[in-house]
């Protein structure tokens, strides 16, 4: 519990804001004064998005426990349906909506 709102609170928030901005801006600052970013940065910009998206999928599932009930089954079912649906229909919103609603139904009813 926070007993009182002293300046410590605002200093901590300011420090976190600063750190966050730093991580976002650093790549842009490093390559700001070049007419063209170095070839290696262009290469990374080309190949990283796919890899980072794979990383984000794992990141968003990081707290999943597959060793205890429900063993990640709702996630597996929802993702399987999403993948199949998306490969056939290629409709971004439809795939996301069906996957999410299916997951919500699963965790609120079958795996509640």
């Amino acid at each position: 519990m926070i007993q009182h709102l002293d300046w410590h609170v605002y200093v901590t928030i300011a420090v976190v804001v600063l750190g966050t901005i730093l991580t976002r801006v650093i790549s842009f600052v490093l390559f700001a004064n070049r007419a063209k970013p170095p070839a290696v940065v262009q290469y990374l910009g080309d190949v990283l998005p796919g890899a980072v998206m794979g990383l984000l999928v794992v990141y968003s599932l990081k707290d999943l426990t597959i060793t205890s009930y429900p063993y990640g089954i709702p996630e597996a079912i929802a993702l399987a349906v999403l993948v199949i649906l998306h490969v056939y229909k290629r409709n971004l919103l439809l795939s996301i909506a069906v996957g999410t609603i299916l997951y919500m139904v699963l965790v609120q009813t079958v795996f509640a």
Partner: protein
Amino acid sequence: MVKRSAFGYAFPLTVPICAGFLFLGISYGLYATGQGLPAFLPVLMSATIFAGSMEFVTVALLTAPFDPLGAFLLTLLVNARHIFYGLSMVTAYRGTGWKKIPLIYGMCDESFAINATTKIPDTIDKGWFYLHVTWLNYLYWVGGVALGSFGGKLITISLKGIEFVLTALFAVLFLELLLTAGKRLYCYLGFGITAAWLLAVGPERFMIPAMITIVVVFLSMRRYKRSASHDSQPKTEAKEDPQV
């Protein structure tokens, strides 16, 4: 006209994020006020920090003894993935003028995900598209946190499981890149390396080693390819010609 069509193109893509952010924002508001913070504080943090997982961590920092240096280092660690996003967007955000400032400030996971993967038609102004995606997502997040902080107790229907919308979003965008771009190998590598590190060191510490490994592997692949093409250029040309 240009501005309007950029918005029309951007808005539908942010709708799933609206659903996810409103829910997560409400959850965050509830959590922060539940930890004893006055309602305006989570809203202030969401509007200034604007990095979801770090905002949850900051609530813990505020309830722990004052340690600004520790807080700073922890922020760098938790948000190190942004360096990655920056590397990916250096070229794309070039030439966007003043918009570059809000684009970089608001570069959260979801805005990066959409801006990095969407194939924007030539008729649409790229800078405005990026900016619309970014400010809309910002609004959803801060709005969700405000709802949760000031009125979270009024919500009665069960939204359990809606946080999966963000997993679904990342999965679909990942799939899009797998299905369209000729960069399948990099997609699999990113996924596989991250999953391997998660299994090896657990959910608290896998991100940094995974990101370093991805960059190192990709850089060595580039080096290998270049040296391979340098060494054998005349030979491979002769060999591959009949097949083409």
